[in-house]
């Protein structure tokens, strides 16, 4: 089963969350990244995510596998958008179910941190003043 996925269109958070509902799990933590209207002082119009799809899928899956091995959780999922997004669109969603909240929070944080730092996805922001650039953080 795939726990990490890329989506080129709006995805259904309710369904993703529903897949994690489990009678054994008392705690559920989730994180969502939305497209903001500004970044480092510039007005943002929208953005584009591009991925090296094959490697992003395998590396994302590896992150989820690591989370399941490191933390006492029941299950986890992550979905990342690719393509063109507008202000307010959902860019990434992480959900984790666990018996207790410590593990749920820790695993959720681990997954978003690792996805942001390791999975080959790139963001190009469109600014209101027209100039767009690919973000390659130091």
């Amino acid at each position, binding site marked *: 089963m795939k726990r990490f996925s890329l989506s080129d269109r709006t995805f259904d958070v309710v369904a993703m969350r529903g897949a994690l509902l489990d009678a054994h799990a008392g705690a559920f933590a989730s994180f969502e990244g939305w497209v903001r209207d500004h970044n480092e002082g510039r007005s943002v119009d929208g953005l584009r995510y591009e*991925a*090296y799809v094959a*490697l992003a899928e395998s590396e994302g899956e590896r992150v989820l596998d690591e989370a399941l091995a490191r933390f006492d959780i029941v299950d986890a999922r992550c979905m990342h958008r690719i393509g063109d997004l507008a202000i307010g669109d959902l860019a990434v969603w992480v959900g984790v179910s666990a018996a207790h909240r410590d593990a749920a929070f820790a695993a959720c944080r681990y997954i978003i941190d690792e*996805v942001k730092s390791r999975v080959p*996805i*790139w963001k190009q922001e469109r600014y209101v003043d027209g100039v767009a*650039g*690919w*973000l*390659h953080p130091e």
Partner: protein
Amino acid sequence: MTRVNVLYFASLRDAAGVASEAVESDATDLQALYGELRTRHGFTLLVDRLRVATDGAFARWSDGLREGSEVAFIPPVSGG
């Protein structure tokens, strides 16, 4: 000469002007291959800011070129 297919993403693709290209090279490893292509396309990213993958899996810069393989240079990621 070894023939590989090179994939470019994000700012590397913009600089190269193509998303992929067939390359024949005598480079002894992937780091040397990047050096050649950096010169050809004027990439500003230095090798120490990139990672490299072959055939969809992360690889080492010291790996040699394999005939017919797919090589991808991975600029610093910015998902999430």
